């Protein structure tokens, strides 16, 4: 775990982080190509655009911390060390896969790397995270239970139940809400009232932090501060990360001759090509685009070419 702010980090560390973000993007792009070719029978929720928060959470974690994830978990599994070959084999349900080909994608956990459980059911993972936090308490460990959810899953009643349990039992914990605005095909506006997450969290005694901008280094700093505060004050902190799931496209129909906007939810992302420079949108919604605009000690484009070749070589 990194234990100091990014300002004091050496350039090697920053380069490692940049390479990790690049690896996660390229790994997904390669999986996406196989997905487009119908290689997988299990449904996979890719996480283009979610890489920065996943790296920050992983960098924040100590060996004893627990991370309970949801159906969209590829980015957290990668950030916790899963390699392309292991993921491909798991999605192909091979014994060599990350979980022995027994979990596929939506339930893909990795207890040895701090991910004891992944849930395919919206809101299901909150309760398990409460159990992990109770175990930390029973074992008297200096550790944090983290649970990842989205702006859709937090509509489940179990979000509120878990928030109360975390706060009421004074258990160091972090709820990470990946707010991509969409729940499958419905935007927040199309399905519910706006939730003031800050007020909701603070109303139960929990803390609140909002992350925007997709700067991975900024996120690492802030998540490390979140962990420290959760431990020091024995409290729950809700982190709302504003992001977009990249990979959207336009579907032309008779009703929509100019193309209807289709949000990326799951399955292959048809407009993302492995041959392209892996930045998907050259704006703040793409963590790789944000990274590429920061001062670098390496040539990211050249590194992407080399890494892509190495990754492809590893699965052939």
């Amino acid at each position, binding site marked *: 775990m990194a234990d100091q702010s990014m300002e004091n980090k050496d350039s090697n560390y920053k380069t490692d982080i940049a390479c990790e973000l690049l690896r996660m993007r390229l790994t997904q792009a390669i999986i996406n190509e196989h997905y487009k070719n119908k290689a997988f029978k299990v449904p996979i929720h890719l996480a283009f655009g979610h890489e920065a928060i996943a790296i920050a959470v992983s960098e924040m974690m100590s060996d004893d911390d627990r991370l309970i994830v949801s159906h969209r978990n590829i980015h957290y599994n990668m950030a916790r060390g899963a390699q392309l070959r292991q993921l491909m084999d798991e999605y192909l349900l091979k014994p060599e896969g990350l979980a022995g080909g027994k979990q596929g994608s939506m339930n893909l*956990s990795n207890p040895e790397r701090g991910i004891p*459980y992944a849930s395919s*059911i919206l809101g*299901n993972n909150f*309760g398990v995270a409460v159990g992990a936090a*109770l175990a930390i308490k*029973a*074992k008297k460990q200096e550790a944090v239970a983290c649970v990842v959810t989205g702006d859709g899953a937090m509509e489940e009643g179990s979000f509120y139940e878990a928030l109360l349990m975390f706060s009421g039992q004074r258990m160091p914990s972090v709820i990470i809400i990946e707010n991509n605005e969409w729940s499958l095909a419905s935007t927040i506006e199309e399905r519910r009232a706006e939730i003031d997450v800050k007020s909701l969290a603070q109303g139960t005694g929990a803390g609140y932090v909002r992350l925007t901008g997709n700067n991975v280094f900024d996120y690492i700093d802030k998540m490390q501060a979140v962990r420290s505060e959760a431990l020091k004050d024995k409290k729950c902190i809700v982190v709302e990360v504003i992001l977009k799931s990249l990979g959207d496209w336009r579907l032309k129909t008779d009703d929509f001759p100019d193309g209807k906007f289709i949000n990326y939810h799951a399955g292959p992302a048809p407009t993302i090509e492995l041959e392209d420079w892996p930045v998907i949108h050259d704006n703040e919604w793409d963590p790789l685009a944000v990274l590429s605009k920061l001062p670098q000690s390496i040539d990211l484009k050249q590194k992407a070419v080399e890494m892509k070749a190495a990754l492809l070589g590893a699965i052939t």
Partner: protein
Amino acid sequence: MNYVGYINKLMREKLKQTPDTVCFGQNISTGSCLSGLTRGLPEGDGNLVVNTTNSECTLTGAGFGLLAEGVNAVFFLKQQDFLLLGIDHLVHTWNAMRAQGFKGSFTIMAIVVDNGYEGPQSCLNNLADFCSISKIPGYSFSNKEDIDAIVNDQFLEPGVRFIAVSQSLFRSEMGLFEGGGEVVDPTNHIRKYGSGDDVTIVSLNFACSQSQELFGNLQADQINSSLFNVSSMMPDSWGSIFNHAARSKRVVICDDSKSVHKQSAHLASLIKAHVEGCDVLVLDRSYQEEWSFPNADQFVIEPSSVKKWCKA
């Protein structure tokens, strides 16, 4: 010592011997402590007693989270109906976890109220329904021998199980068939009482006391029976019952559960398939509109009709 006091005593003794256990649930350390069921649960040595919020969904999930951590978890519920809010975890979370070989333990101990006057909120009395959809084993505490066996063999042991406690038996003394049962299945969950071969009586769910009363009534009329009390909701083998039925050729199945699909119907069909020339009488409860309202409903067996059937 009464039923609830005996369960509490045995649980406390086993908890004292078992470190790293988290007991949790609503009102388990306040007020009456669930009418004494959870009074004085031991703390220390890594043991926690957590008086929780009213959050059954999350609490059910928390039990699985503790199990994954290698911790022993016990979730107490004042009413089995409340467990409906945890169904998602019982089915999906356990489905996702069961193959991972976690070493922890998760026991869900719920009180079955089954009191018509409490209306629809207490009408769910069949533990086997939960067992069926979750594929988690379940056991009922009907008498002292069941309590001894289940606390010793199941409570806090690795894996997941339900244990159902009957509220209607809470204040009863522990004399029910005490000391007379013969274990007749390999998993210790079917006990045979009596040695008569005229009729085979089978007790399911929480029908043990009514079945015992029937046993006595038949005996008073020179109809000698054997009573098989089944404490498991998913027994591995019905062989001992089939063998006895092959001799008696008459089986009375007593089932107090209120479900549409009942264990008794399943067992009756198995007996008819496996035991040639055997008559089966199922004494159960059919759905009543009254179950939706406060009423005097309770499971009652009319012994005269059974005697008549036996003599026919």
